[in-house]
Structures are given as structure tokens and as C-alpha cells.
């Protein structure tokens, strides 16, 4: 068990946290939506105010979600699946208005040298993003920069788990009661206990739905009743992300970083002891004083329980009842690791098979025929053997893609360097064979071209996106492995129709060859590409940027072959 204070763990000094909390409360009175101050140790703190108008929350959709703007948040998506995160529209609008504020635009943030990047500390914040949001934060290893303090009974962090339509009636009163700028702020006379309990019940019931639904799924329930009930009800898309610190109200704190556990605890910790306690608990759920609470629990001797993925949880002594579920979720975390371990165990076989295909490629080249064309002809039993290898590899890679599609691998998997490299190698080596197989069987006539939507196997799309994301390349810039598909597609049409495409392709080829991303075997005399290119009108060829390429590269290959035969002798 790793001990330490909250400050040591998060890299934010306790006094800064308390100052931030103080500023966060103060910011509600600010006119521009945020305030800026320098804390101790020269930390600059920006504190953003929330909105207190029902209008800002109002949405036509049940949960007010909207797709994240990738131009502002390029990483907040899943890579292979390319699913964008969903965020609460109202909060995003609020963010945009701050962002467009001239004074905010004048703020300069430069990250220099070894200084840690910016951090985010929230106090009783509602959930903002969905599971993709959480996934992306974990993948980028950013979850550690987000620290959320949540009062055990505070209802606000749970609000977005309920559909807006269900709480519409009471919401206005609740906001008024919570708004520090309102004259009804925390005035018990302004809010009936019926409204408070009704609001509390609805939010908690929805939180219960989301928590128990996720728990069933995480525990691997195969009962199809679960799936069928889910199709009758709409569940909130929002999930916790980052690190949570639950404040229990008696000076103790619970520190959790597994988002699945956080979700369970968000529900269980807010439950009243029994039905008779509803009114009391509902009242308590609306009166959370973070400054006092943090003063009590952060300063001096801290009493923190750290719940990490690999430990037993003494939750019940802290008054939480989610222990069993929590262990379950821990096991789930282990399940993902177990999946990863299984996938990792395939690496040697994948490497070996890929080496064999590389050898095949080499032998083909020695016979002066590109392996694309050799494979497409399938003349020899050797070609057949490679086809089996191609299928074996496809099976292994498809399994990875399937797991990623269902988010069954650890969030960081798609940014693992070894897999990105292996995937790139796989794509470069094997995708041409897939294309050859595709056109050998004229599948373009069954289902359309290889490059149409859904034609290209996901295992290549995924591995291409991994590389593009890791190297911060433009989307689609690493598509050289589809070269043969482009050739096949263009050569089936008359020259006049495809002139522009041809010029574009030639330009790309030129570039890829310069960057060594395309192998030179494409220029071999008998290759599909070379043979087709020779049929293009003389005039076009003489002006093409590939003019002379054939001779030049052919010459090189011949020279190398000569070399190698010399060595052989």
C-alpha cells in the first residue's frame, strides 16, 4: 500500500487546494466567468464559476449530450474505433464563452522545462463526459491531472445521471437554493422538503440504474434479461473520469482512481440508511461546504484511505457499503490486464509469421516478380502457404480489434509503442496481400471496391490510426499500404475518367518513395502497376513525375540482386 498525503500523491500542495477551493466559491460572484490569482509557491489558479440558470441546463435530448469538438480536443476520442467522446452540451457552451472572452484569450500558458503540466481540481462538480471521455483520459495518461473532491452526500456530482426531463419541475428551486448569488441561498424556507426529497429520489434512482447496470455488465452477467431491460430504458451516458476524493463528512477521505469504482461509490455513498432517512439525507445532499470540509480533512494529520486496483478494501469501516462491488471492479481491472496478457503472448507468433511472410516477399523479388503479383496469381503451393499465414495473422489481429471495439483491453493499449510498431509492420507487409486476394477473387464486383466504406478490414484501419495518432500525423496521411487498391481501382476505368486521380496517385507514390514508405518492388517490370502505367498515353507519361522511376529503381534492384548473387557464390 502506498501511503502519503493527498498533496504528495497529486502533486498539488494542500494549501493550494484549499486556496483553489476558496477561489472556486468566490468565482461565482465574478462577472466574466472566472477569476485568476496566484497561490503559494507561485502557482497560478484559474477558478471558473458555474451557471445557475435552468436555461443553461435545458436540453431537448434527455441527457443533453453532444459530440465533443475535436478541433478543440483532438485526443478526446478512441483511436481505432474513432468514436468521439460525448460531453454535456450546457457545460461546453459555458466553456466556449469563457474561451472567447478577450481577457482569457490574453492569458499565456507556456509549459517550460520540467515544470508539471496544468492540473484540474474540482469541488462537487457534475459528471461532464461519457465513457469514451474516460477512456481517452486514461489512454493519454492524463487522468492523474484531474482531482475531483466530492462530498459523500453532495447531490450535484450525481445530477447528470438523471435525465433532465425527470427533474425539470424541481430543478429551478434547487438551483436557486444552491446559488450563492441568490437571496434564497441555503435558506431552508425557500425550498420545501417535498421538492428536495423528490429531487433527491429521482437523481438517486437514476444513479442506481446506471450503477447496477454497469455492475452487471462488469461482472459478466450473461443473462439476456439485462440486455432486454436496457433496451426499454435510457441510461445516462456520463461516467466519472480522473481521480476522486470522497469527503465523508467526519474528516476522513477516500481516494479512488478506478472510474468504475467511483461510479458505484457515487451511488452507494449517497444512499440513506433507510426510507425514513430520506428527508434528512435529501437536505444534507444540498448543503455541502467544501471549504470547511477540506480545512478539516486536508490540514494537519490526514486520514485517507487509498483504494487502488490491487488491494483489499476496508470500506465498510468508513461507512461505505460498496465493498463487494468494489472488489468486483478490481477484478474487472484485472480482467482487462488478463486480456492484455493473453494478447501480448501472441507477439512472438505474430513476429515469426510476419518474418516468414517477409521472407516470401524477398523470394518473390528475387524471382523478379513483386509479391503482390505473385500472390495474386497463386500459382505455386508457396503462395497458398502464404495465404494460410495471412489468414492466421488476420485471426490474431482481428481478435485485438474485436477486444478494442468492446473496450476490453486496458485504456492505454492503443498508445503502446511496441504494438504500434508491430501493427505498422503488419500493415505494410500484409495489407498488399489482402488487396491481392480481394482483386483475385473479384470481390469488387460482389461488394464494391476495397477502398469503399467498410471494404478495408478494420485491422488495417486501426493500426494506421494508431500510428497517425502516436506521431501526430494528419488523418489518412499514412495510407501508403492501400497503394495497390488505388491502382486496381483506377486501372479498371478508362484513362480520361481518371486522369486527375492518376496524377494525384503519382504524386503520392513519388512522395512515399522519397520517404521510403513504399517498396520499390512496385516498379518491377511485370508488376500490375508497371504494366498498367505503360498503357497510359505517351504524352501523360512523359510529363509524369514518375518519369524515369521505373528504369532507376529497376536498375537498383538489379544491382542488388547481382550483389546478393555474388555473395551467394
Amino acid at each position, binding site marked *: 500500500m502506498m501511503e502519503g498525503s493527498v498533496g504528495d500523491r497529486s502533486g498539488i500542495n494542500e494549501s493550494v487546494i484549499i486556496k483553489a477551493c476558496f477561489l472556486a466559491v468566490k468565482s461565482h460572484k465574478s462577472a466574466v466567468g472566472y477569476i485568476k490569482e496566484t497561490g503559494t509557491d507561485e502557482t497560478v489558479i484559474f477558478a471558473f464559476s458555474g451557471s445557475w440558470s435552468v436555461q443553461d441546463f435545458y436540453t431537448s435530448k434527455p441527457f443533453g449530450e453532444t459530440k465533443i469538438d475535436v478541433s478543440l480536443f483532438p485526443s478526446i476520442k478512441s483511436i481505432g474505433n474513432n468514436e468521439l467522446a460525448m460531453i454535456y452540451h450546457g457545460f461546453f457552451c459555458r466553456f466556449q464563452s469563457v474561451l472567447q472572452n478577450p481577457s482569457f484569450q490574453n492569458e499565456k500558458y507556456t509549459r517550460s522545462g520540467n515544470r508539471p503540466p496544468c492540473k484540474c481540481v474540482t469541488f462537487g462538480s457534475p459528471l461532464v463526459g461519457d465513457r469514451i471521455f474516460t477512456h481517452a483520459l486514461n489512454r493519454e495518461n492524463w487522468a492523474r491531472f484531474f482531482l475531483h473532491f466530492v462530498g459523500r452526500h453532495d447531490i450535484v456530482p450525481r445530477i447528470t445521471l438523471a435525465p433532465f426531463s425527470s427533474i425539470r419541475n424541481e430543478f429551478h428551486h434547487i438551483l436557486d437554493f444552491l446559488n450563492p448569488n441568490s437571496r434564497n441561498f441555503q435558506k431552508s424556507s425557500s425550498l420545501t422538503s417535498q421538492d428536495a426529497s423528490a429531487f433527491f429520489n429521482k437523481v438517486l434512482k437514476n444513479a442506481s440504474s446506471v450503477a447496477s447496470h454497469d455492475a452487471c455488465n462488469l461482472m459478466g452477467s450473461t443473462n439476456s*434479461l*439485462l440486455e432486454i431491460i436496457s433496451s426499454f430504458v435510457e441510461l445516462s451516458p456520463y461516467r466519472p473520469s480522473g481521480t476522486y476524493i470522497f469527503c465523508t463528512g467526519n474528516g476522513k477521505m477516500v481516494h479512488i482512481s478506478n472510474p468504475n469504482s467511483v461510479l458505484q461509490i457515487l451511488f452507494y455513498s449517497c444512499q440513506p440508511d433507510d426510507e425514513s432517512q430520506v428527508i434528512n439525507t435529501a437536505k444534507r445532499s444540498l448543503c455541502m461546504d467544501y471549504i470547511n470540509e477540506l480545512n478539516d480533512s486536508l490540514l494537519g494529520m490526514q486520514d485517507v484511505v487509498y483504494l487502488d486496483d490491487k488491494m483489499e478494501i476496508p470500506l465498510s469501516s468508513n461507512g461505505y457499503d460498496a465493498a463487494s462491488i468494489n472488489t468486483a471492479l478490481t*477484478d474487472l481491472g484485472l480482467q482487462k490486464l488478463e486480456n492484455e496478457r493473453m494478447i501480448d503472448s501472441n507477439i512472438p507468433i505474430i513476429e515469426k509469421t510476419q518474418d516468414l511472410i517477409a521472407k516470401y516477399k524477398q523470394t518473390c523479388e528475387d524471382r523478379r516478380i513483386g509479391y503482390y503479383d505473385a500472390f495474386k496469381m497463386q500459382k505455386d503451393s508457396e503462395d497458398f502457404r502464404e495465404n494460410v499465414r495471412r489468414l492466421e495473422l488476420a485471426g490474431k489481429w482481428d481478435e485485438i480489434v474485436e477486444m478494442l471495439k468492446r473496450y476490453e483491453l486496458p485504456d492505454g493499449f492503443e498508445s503502446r509503442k511496441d504494438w504500434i510498431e508491430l501493427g505498422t509492420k503488419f500493415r505494410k507487409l500484409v495489407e498488399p496481400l489482402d488487396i491481392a486476394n480481394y482483386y483475385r477473387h473479384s470481390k469488387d464486383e460482389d461488394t464494391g471496391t476495397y477502398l469503399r466504406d467498410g471494404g478495408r478490414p478494420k485491422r488495417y484501419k486501426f493500426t494506421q490510426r494508431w500510428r497517425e495518432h502516436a506521431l501526430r500525423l494528419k488523418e489518412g496521411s499514412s495510407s501508403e499500404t492501400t497503394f495497390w487498391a488505388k491502382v486496381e481501382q483506377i486501372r479498371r476505368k478508362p484513362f480520361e475518367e481518371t486522369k486527375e486521380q492518376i496524377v494525384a496517385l503519382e504524386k503520392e507514390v513519388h512522395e512515399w518513395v522519397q520517404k521510403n514508405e513504399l517498396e520499390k518492388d512496385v516498379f518491377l517490370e511485370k508488376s500490375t502497376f508497371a504494366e498498367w502505367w505503360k498503357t497510359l498515353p505517351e504524352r501523360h507519361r512523359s510529363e509524369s513525375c514518375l518519369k524515369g522511376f521505373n528504369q532507376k529503381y529497376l536498375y537498383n534492384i538489379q544491382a542488388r540482386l547481382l550483389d546478393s548473387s555474388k555473395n551467394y557464390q
Partner: protein
Amino acid sequence: MEAEASSFETSEMLARFLGSTPLLPESWNLCGRSNVMAPQSFLTDEVGGVTYVAFSGVQSVDGLDPFCGNLVPLAGVFPVDAGMFPALEDTVMVDAGLLHLFWTIFHTPVFQNQMFEIKKKQKPVVFTGHSIGGAIAALSSLWLLSYLQSISSPPTVICFTFGSPMIGNEPLSRAIQRQRWGGNFCHLVSKFDILPRLLFAPLAPITTHLHNLLKSWHLTMNSPFFFQDPGNQLGDHEKSELFHFVLGYVEATARSPGTNLSFVPFGNFMFCSSDGAVCVDDATAIVRMLYLTFASGSPSSCIDDHLEYESYVGKISLQFLNRTEEEICESNTYEAGVTLASQSISSGHMAKDCLKMARRIGRTPNLNSANLAIGLSKITPFRAQIEWYKESCDQSDDQLGYYDSFKLRGASKRDFKVFMNRIKLGEFWNSVIDMLEKNQLPHDFHKRAKWVNASQFYKLLVEPLDIAEYYRSGEHRKKGHYMKQGRPRRYKIFDKWWREREAFRENDNDNNSVSISGSGSNNRRSKFASLTQDSCFWAKLEEAREWVEKVSSESDPRHVVALWASIEKFEQYARGLVDRKEVSIDVLAKNSSYTIWVEELRVLKLHSQHFSTQIPGILDRKVVP
């Protein structure tokens, strides 16, 4: 590692999830109203985009008399895909009395109109009912589910019953499991309620008691606020007789599961008590729970509890407000789940054992699925070898084509290898189906593109070999034709997967080389498909061959007309496939069965030219290929 069990018990969690949705309160609400307002009929309502149909628990008791407790076949009643219920005609049976009640309501114009609306709207539907109304709701769901099978994106159907009697036998329960409809049924059963257990016992000895009991229940259910009429109740002695009589049979059933069961539960059972609820879907566990909970009851509670669903539903939907006991913090999560679940129905250690028994032994579904994927990649070379074999057959000098080469094969090593590969592939796919039906795989497994495509490709490639083997070994003379008697069940299931596949944006052509006819069929093929798109083509041809043989020897002119009609139908179908190039070239090989058949037909027609005056209309059209 092999027998690693699922580490969690989710029966309580699932009940908790269901309890947090509005489904149960809304269902019960309408049930209660239909008991009061619509005796012998039903009510419908729409709440939040969901249509609720509630059948009244107050039904004609006299109508039940001659039938109740007797099983009758369901076949012929429901428009089911007979292939999906093997030998359905004889084995799937339901209670005659309950079926009769269902039919009576089903044939009313009001009901027909409602069903028409539901089918049109494509919105989710809840069928529900209290008491006998629950049985009618279950039969209605079964009917609608069977009907919806033929629709591409059917609305979701769920059935909630409250204290319903059982309706059918073991084959029904098995058929529902095979169809993966178990999740569409959730039967709420209170701890002591006698009615859900009643049909474990023979009814003849207790007919009079039962009559009085139903009458007194109906009176109470039919009156607003469940006012109990003291005059109509059974006496204490009668109650006690009834309770012990039924208890005896429930106990016997629970002690020796699987023997002499006429009525068997199906779907999910949600056991409710004042402390909570659990959802169980394992039939053996359900029977034991039915016994264990009932045994802790009493003669009066077994009758009163039938009318307590209102309060149970209320409790379940307020469960989220009640903190669960803290004792659950055992280190083992599975143990904790079991403890929690058995607390929820407050019936101690026995129920705990029972829940443990329901625990699925075996790896977790996702691990199973991952292991199957490895299995699939291991058998891929077998498949590739068959592909290779097909190609070499198609190019061979004898020009027999793939199908006939295999059918007429000699004793070569290569042929034997293909024969073995065919068997290994068949075994693999059978094991996949087996695991799926035993709920050992993720619930959406049969919708995953990888498996749908792989199974389709397997079917197109290997089924012709299975057909060849069937006719080669003369099975058709013993059992009848392949299409009717010989087609392995796996292919019918793969047909269903393929039919129901969601419009995959990606057809994963790569691994599985599936050629999808239909999608993109606007583009005419420029060459023949690599695999014949109807995997049963050869089986149909074998039948057509028989017709051609028969037609020349047949003397009865009516039979001759019928035979010619069949021949012509097949001819059109086959020519369509060939014209659209949806057959693989082996069909058109010079010496293939098809080519020979076409030639035989041509000769036959020449010969029968002079008959054509006798058989008008048959040979008028151009039939020369």
C-alpha cells in the same frame, strides 16, 4: 484454470437494476387496473414510448375446468419456423386450459387491432398480467416473438408476469432457451404464493378447493382496493390440505430434478420478499428456489401472498433508498454476491446453496469467446485447404467440378484429408453453437461480424461437401432428401444469423472472403462467384434429378403435371443463379451433375414433345437452356 467459475453472482444486482426502472411499477399498475376494469379481457396503455398490454387475472374459471393441468401440443398454433424447433409437433406442449383462454382473447377483434397497431408502430412492448392473466401474457409474448422472427428490425418484447401459473413442458423451456428468448420473460413470484407452484401437482384431487380458491381470489382482485370478502374464503382445514398437497409435489420435483416433470419453468424468475429480490434464469435453481421459499410458508400465507404483489413491487422499486446490510463484506466477491442475494429473499443457507448451484461453471463468457477466436484461427488452415482443393477440382482435367469430384471421389490421400477437414470444421462449429445455447458466450456473440461472416463463409464452402457426402452414402434413400431430413442444424442457425445480421458497415471480406449477394447486387458480376451463393444449390439439384428420372416412368398424368411444375421451377431458379453469375464455376463444369441434368432435361423434352399436346401449358414456354 479449466473449470474456472464466473467470479460474480449477479442475480441480486440484476433485480436491483430492474427495480430501478419504471417497468415493474407501470406493468403492475396496469395489471391492477385490468383486474378491476377488464375481467376476461385486457387493457393497453402507452407510457414513455412503451406499449403496455395487461391481461386481467380475472378469467372464466368454468372455461378452465375440462382442460386445466393437461398438456396439448403447441404446434400448428404458432407460425414458428419449424426448423428452429426440431420436432416441435410432438414435443412442445402447453396447458390446454390456459391455451384456450389465450385463444379466446386472441380471436377478438379488439386484440387483433391492438396487435396490428403494435406491429405497425415498431415500438417496444410489455406484455403483463397478474395470476392467470400472466399465463396469457406469456403465451401472447411467445406468439409475438415467433411472429417477429421474420422481421428484420423487430421491436423489443418483454413479458412480466405476477404470480402466474407455469404454462408448458420441458421442450418448451428448451426451445425458449435455444431461441435465446429467456431474457424476454420475467416471472415475479412471491415467496409463498401457491399459484406458480400449483402445476407441479396433479389437479384432479383438488378441483373443488381450487374452484373455490380461484373464485375468492377473483372476487378480491376484481374489487377496487383488494377488498377481501370473508364469506367466500376457504376454511382453514381446506387451506391446509391444499398447501400440503402442493408442497409435497414441489418437494418431490425439487429433490429429483428432471424426472417426471410435466410442467417446467422457463425464462427468468424474480423471487420477491419484503427484503428484496433476485433474478434467476437457471431452470434447476428456479425449481429448488420455488420449493425452498414455499416450504417456509404456511397454509394461509400461500393463499394471501398471491394478492401481495402490489406491496412487493412497491418495495422493489424503493430498494435504492435502503442501504444493504454491512455483513456482505466478505473477501470473496462471489460469496458476497450469494450472501446478498440470499438475504434479499431472506431464506437462509438453503437458498444460498441453491444460488451457488446456479453459478455457471466455466470460464467467463468473454474468455470463452476469446478462446473460441483462437480455435477459429486454428481451424482456418483446414478451411484454406478445402478452398485449395476446390480450386484444384475446378481446374482438373476430368471437369467434374468441386461437388461431383468430392461425391465421386476415390480413395486418395487428398480426398481423405478434405473429408477429415470437413468433419473437424463441423465439430468446431457445433461446439460454438453448443456454448452459445448454454449461455457460455457473450449475449451478442451471434451478432458479431467476425462470427457471422466466418460462419457464412464456412457454410458456403463446406455445405456442398456435406450434401455430396449425404447423397454419396445413400442417406437420402434411408431418411429422405437432404433439404427435409438431412440438413445439419448448424446451417439453419447460420442462415438465421446471416438473415438477422445487422447491416454491418464492414463485411470483413478479408478474413472470410464472404461474397454477399444482394448488397451491391446492382453491379453485375463480370465473372462467376468464387462460391455458389446458395449453399443448398446441390441439394436442390439432387431432388430435381429425381424428378427428371421419375417423370418419364410416371403414369398418373396428375403426378406428371406436378413433376413438370417442380422441374420447371428449379430450372428457372438455377438459370437465374447462373445468369446472375451467383454460382461458382464448378456448377457449369463440363461433367458436373448440373450440366448433365440440363442435358438430360433437354433430351427428355425432345422426347416428350409429342406429349405436349396432352399436357397443355407445361412445355409451351421456351425451355432450351
